[in-house]
């Protein structure tokens, strides 16, 4: 009686990565770069993601989805400043939507990206500001 496993497998083949089906492809490869996104305020102090109903993982997934929805090539730090600006704008709009009930008193929020990559055997980190907006 392995029918459920079989049904799930067929569901994954047909629907792909649509809940409740998944290929569980996380960490199926080890990329030679990685991105981390974070928020800062007007004084460039870090704002915890949890303060904006978000998480680091959430932002990383959002970045990929927004890039794919806009057909922007992404990865290995290839994104131009204008692409980063546009993606950051769309990401902050989504973040804003889920924070309408929070009182941020016209708080300035910046979305930034850390790009980790190898130079020789040493890990380098490049920080870039993506977009700035006001939460009210």
């Amino acid at each position: 009686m392995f029918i459920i496993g079989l049904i799930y497998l067929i569901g994954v083949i047909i629907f792909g990565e649509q809940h409740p089906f998944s290929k569980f492809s996380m960490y199926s490869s080890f990329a030679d770069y990685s991105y981390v996104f974070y928020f800062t305020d007007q004084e460039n102090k870090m704002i915890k993601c949890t303060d904006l109903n978000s998480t680091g993982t959430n932002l990383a997934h959002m970045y990929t989805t927004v890039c794919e929805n806009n057909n922007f090539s992404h990865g290995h730090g290839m994104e131009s400043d204008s692409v980063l600006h546009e993606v950051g704008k769309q990401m902050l709009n989504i973040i804003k939507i889920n924070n309408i009930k929070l009182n941020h008193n016209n708080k300035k929020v910046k979305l930034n990206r850390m790009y980790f990559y190898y130079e020789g055997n040493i890990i380098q980190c490049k920080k870039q500001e993506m977009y700035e907006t006001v939460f009210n």
Partner: protein
Amino acid sequence: MKDFYKHLNINSYSSIEWKLMKVSFSLIWFLSLLSILYKYNFAPIPESIFKLFPAGFYLSTNAKILLFIANLILICCYILEKYFWWSLLGLSLISLFGFSLEDSNSDFDRNTMITGIFFAQFFAYSIKKKYFDFDIEKYRVQFSVQIIAISYTLSAIAKLRTSGLNWVTDGLLMPLQIMKTNYFGYVNDANIEHIHNAHHVIELLSKYSVAVMFVLAFTLIIEFFAFVSIFNKKYSFIYGILLMFMHIGIYLVLDVAIKGTYIPMLIFMLNPLFLFWTIIKSLKNNLIKVYEKHA
């Protein structure tokens, strides 16, 4: 513990095992939905069933309260096994809705197993409705284990399809991923310990690169053969222990705890509440014996 070993050798699940699985599973589901309802009102990047909803979906506070109450009633029915088929159908649909809403906010928490398990149990009870001799005591749990097992096997297949066996050697690029996942923790709570942990783990792994490849190969094998746990209860328990160690390893190295995956696995493969209940029962029996001896 004798009782526990005895239970492992019987390839069916007792009423108390099933009840404790349901209680633990209901609790994790209840907390998950609560968190989704607290966090999300919109589906800005529609995924799954939200692709069928009209644009500009909004979940009002009243709708949230209604959903919360309905869920609470369904959970009570699920635990008490009243209107069981209907409660499983309701929970499956709410779970599908809730986690799709979460995915539609790019919050991919890998909760597919929870919805899958509700649907699997619903499917088992649907078969029971039609075929009276269907061994529901066994299959309501075994179907749930099938969802868990196939998920791990699929994860191994994804690794083999994307990277092939090179996945094991590519693990030498893992420091970048370790950096990333630990920084995820840091940007979440601003605790600098995550970054210290990343540097500590990277330094440790660079010293033992052969051991890292060995652990990765072992992980791939464990995941690939997870379907073995479907065959009987004892295999499922042993596999549960292996997977638990795998998740502990992932947490220590990558600072990643995939709650939507390891919690259902622990509940349906190891059933910690039942293990705890057996220990308490055995302690109680031993105390009674000691008391009777000295009385």
